[in-house]
């Protein structure tokens, strides 16, 4: 299975490549009043309003800096009921992928009540890389908020 490595603060996180739609540069974000701090705002992805979640903030490493290397990883998230929804993950230097085959050591499953978006971890070289679960990125209140926006469109 192929993973995309993204940096947030000093650490790197892995994300299943099959959920990635596109990796785009940092765009202008429309802030959402009242949204959790990790949700930095909405952006228009090909005409659809998509919430951008700051992975660095979620990881406790401060907001993602505005650099040329800052990226929004547009992911497709499967909702209960089979619907798919787009979300943007803000991170820096999304430049590498890593392949994990069935013969590699299986990732260690993790259950962190404070960070439900971390699913497991595996080792790349000498680095332990937590693997993120895109389904858990968007806080529930943001989901309902974006639902309303989609309904209005």
């Amino acid at each position: 299975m192929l993973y995309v490595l993204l940096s947030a603060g000093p650490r790197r996180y892995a994300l299943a490549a099959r959920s990635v739609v596109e990796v785009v540069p940092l765009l202008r974000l429309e802030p959402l009043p009242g949204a959790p701090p990790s949700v930095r705002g909405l952006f228009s992805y090909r005409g659809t309003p998509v919430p951008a979640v700051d992975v660095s903030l979620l990881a406790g490493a401060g907001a993602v800096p505005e650099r040329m290397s800052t990226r929004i990883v547009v992911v497709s998230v499967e909702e209960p009921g089979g619907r798919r929804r787009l979300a943007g993950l803000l991170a820096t230097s999304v430049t590498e992928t890593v392949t994990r085959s069935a013969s590699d050591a299986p990732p260690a499953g993790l259950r962190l009540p404070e960070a439900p978006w971390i699913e497991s971890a595996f080792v790349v070289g000498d680095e332990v890389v937590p693997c993120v679960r895109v389904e858990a990125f968007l806080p529930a209140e943001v989901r309902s908020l974006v639902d309303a926006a989609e309904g209005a469109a």
Partner: protein
Amino acid sequence: MNARLLAPDDCWSRIGVSGDGSCEKLPELVHCRNCPVFSAGGRTLFEREPPPGYAEEWTKVLALPKPVEAPGTLTATVFRVGEEWLALEVSHVVRVGVARPIRRVPHRSGEVLLGLVNLDGELVLCASLASLLGVSDVPGAPPPGRYLAVALAGERWVFPVDEIDGVHRLEQEGLGPLPSTLSEARARHARGLARTSERTVTLLDAARLLAGLRERGGLS
């Protein structure tokens, strides 16, 4: 912020291809872009603050529907043999490198089949595309300085080439018919003429090229 300040060492403009070329790794790597130091330097360039208007420009681009790539494009490596620019679909190209010694094969080597080349310890047949296709040399040009290693139906071959232009996208639709002025030898191995942004190239047909190599190389 100045990118130069962030770069660890811009050795490529001192001892690399933009400098005096004295770097000891250069003969092996051929070009600085194959060097990890250069890649790392390139990455630090992206640690700059974006110029004003950068986010706005991308915001506009990403708000538009995704451009659909024409289905009829193919990707080909464009290279020069003698006076002729040729192209071969990139799926057949194994690698490109600096010319290496060709060992002649007694009673076999001729105009088309030049001999054998050591490629990672494997002996691979080396053939002259110039002779096969009847391409004339550029008068006074040095001997080919690069080689192109290809896999045609699983068979590896090496061709000496004069220049590599890189990988280009060619439009299958825009593939022009072969002009009648083209030599018969060249027409037999070609699929058509294609245009890159700079020039017209002859796109080679892998199956016919292999058949021609075997026949003219005295292998069939």
